[in-house]
């Protein structure tokens, strides 16, 4: 079964036994059997030579039997290529949430980063406020912040919705805390967080970090935790120091934030994604989300990443995984505004797809927008005096 991609396994479990599922089967270069024998009598619709593989449509039972064949190396779902969407957004179930009527409308996302290109068509009419903490002005001269904002909330207008972000109708609050070289000081980020709190945003996105390791007691991490306690959802990048352990830097080690590592479109943890634990022994990251080869908005006159035309560019990093989390948070908060940051974090973790890796590699697994949206949260009844049952029994 481990030869079957996680997303395909999940698909197989939800489909009837006689369902026809399109797959791509990769087999060993040196097998000596005729292809139809190897593919359990199923005729491939296409064969490939660059990788030794065949595309075919078959049942979950045949897929399982193929996975036991020693000549078969890997089986992936043959996903439809949609002209309206990039790969990561459908992978994590956002289109189903949009179809249910939730696009982040009315939710405020603060992006604390290198600024934004305010004239990019994908943000038209949705930048509610901007502030500069670098002295350079709010314009994005690096490109990182524009890319991050596009993942969280780009409308995809300049790409006929192909590169649409997670919450395409959310409002954006832009704090420029990193300069044109993509660097800044902890205190600039802390000032940006205070500004976001003053603006009464709902979600704060931090696709940035300092040198690892850390234990969550530094000033920036504690500022993040205070913001969470005040009711703000804070999504933070784990870092790009993987695959070694103890590679999460501040503020990724903050206790109450949602720390986001990077996965691939094949639902594997990205090698570069930082790993836990924190130096005080806590498990991190909390979740994974796609962060490899993500195409999103390109700021004017910047050349960061691999440009894809005038308006988009491709970047990799836990910076890219983090706004996926902020975008999911915006969709879920629009549907269920009563959720506290702690409840939202628990919801994302409980509904994440377990990739079967160590908790310090994957956290709870790869988060899923649709699963989080669907999950019924057990109502939380506040206890008298705000204390738990045991403390009340003890009279404390």
């Amino acid at each position, binding site marked *: 079964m481990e030869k079957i991609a996680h997303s395909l396994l999940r698909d197989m479990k939800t489909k009837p036994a006689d369902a026809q599922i399109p797959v791509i089967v990769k087999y060993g270069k040196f097998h000596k059997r005729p292809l139809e024998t190897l593919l359990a009598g199923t005729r491939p619709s296409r064969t490939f030579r660059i990788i030794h593989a065949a595309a075919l449509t078959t049942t979950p039972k045949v897929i399982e039997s193929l996975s036991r064949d020693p000549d078969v190396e890997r089986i992936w779902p043959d996903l439809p290529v949609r002209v309206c969407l990039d790969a990561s957004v459908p992978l994590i179930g956002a289109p189903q949430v949009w179809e249910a009527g939730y696009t982040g409308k009315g939710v405020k996302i603060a992006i604390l*980063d*290198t600024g934004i290109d305010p004239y990019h068509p994908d943000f038209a009419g949705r930048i509610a406020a901007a502030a500069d903490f670098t002295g350079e002005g709010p314009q994005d001269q*690096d490109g*990182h*912040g524009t890319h991050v904002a596009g993942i969280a909330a780009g409308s995809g207008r300049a790409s006929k919705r192909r590169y649409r972000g997670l919450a395409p109708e959310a409002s954006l609050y832009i704090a420029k805390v*990193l300069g044109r070289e*993509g*660097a*800044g*000081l*902890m*205190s*600039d*980020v*802390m*000032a940006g*967080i*205070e500004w976001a*709190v003053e603006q009464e945003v709902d979600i704060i996105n931090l*696709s*940035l*970090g*300092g*040198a690892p390791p850390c234990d969550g*007691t*530094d*000033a*920036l991490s*504690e*500022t993040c935790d*205070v*913001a969470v306690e005040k009711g703000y959802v804070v999504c933070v*990048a784990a*870092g*790009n120091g993987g695959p070694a352990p103890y590679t999460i830097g*501040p503020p990724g080690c903050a206790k109450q934030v949602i720390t986001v590592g990077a996965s691939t479109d094949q639902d594997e943890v990205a090698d570069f994604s930082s790993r836990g634990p924190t130096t005080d022994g806590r498990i991190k990251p909390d979740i994974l989300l796609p962060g490899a080869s993500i195409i999103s908005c390109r700021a004017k006159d910047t050349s*960061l*990443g691999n440009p894809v035309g005038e308006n988009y560019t491709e*970047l*990799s*990093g*836990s*910076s*890219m995984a*983090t706004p996926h989390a902020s975008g999911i948070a915006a969709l879920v908060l629009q549907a269920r505004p009563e959720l506290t940051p702690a409840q939202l974090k628990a919801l994302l973790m409980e509904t994440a797809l377990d990739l079967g890796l160590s908790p310090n590699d994957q956290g709870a697994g790869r988060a899923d927008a649709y699963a989080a949206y669907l999950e019924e949260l057990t109502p939380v009844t506040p206890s008298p005096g705000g204390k738990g049952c045991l403390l009340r029994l003890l009279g404390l």
Partner: protein
Amino acid sequence: MGKIDRSFKRRLMKEPETKVRLIVRTRDEPKTYRSLLARRGIKVKRELALIKALAIECEASAALALLREGWVVSLEEDSEVRALT
């Protein structure tokens, strides 16, 4: 934990004339200490209200002197953070 990380303190002691950027956590509202620091020639860059702190810039020797102040809860380096691509 004390007011300062030991290895950071050693760095400050080793080069007392070096300019350093610090985050000072304060016992009371940070604005209370602004003028006091200014009188000592310490530049206050930001007041940070969420955790009661000040971002300052001064010589390492002046930073070490702050450790003797009762209102100083802790001192740490105002470290660099970077975009994570």
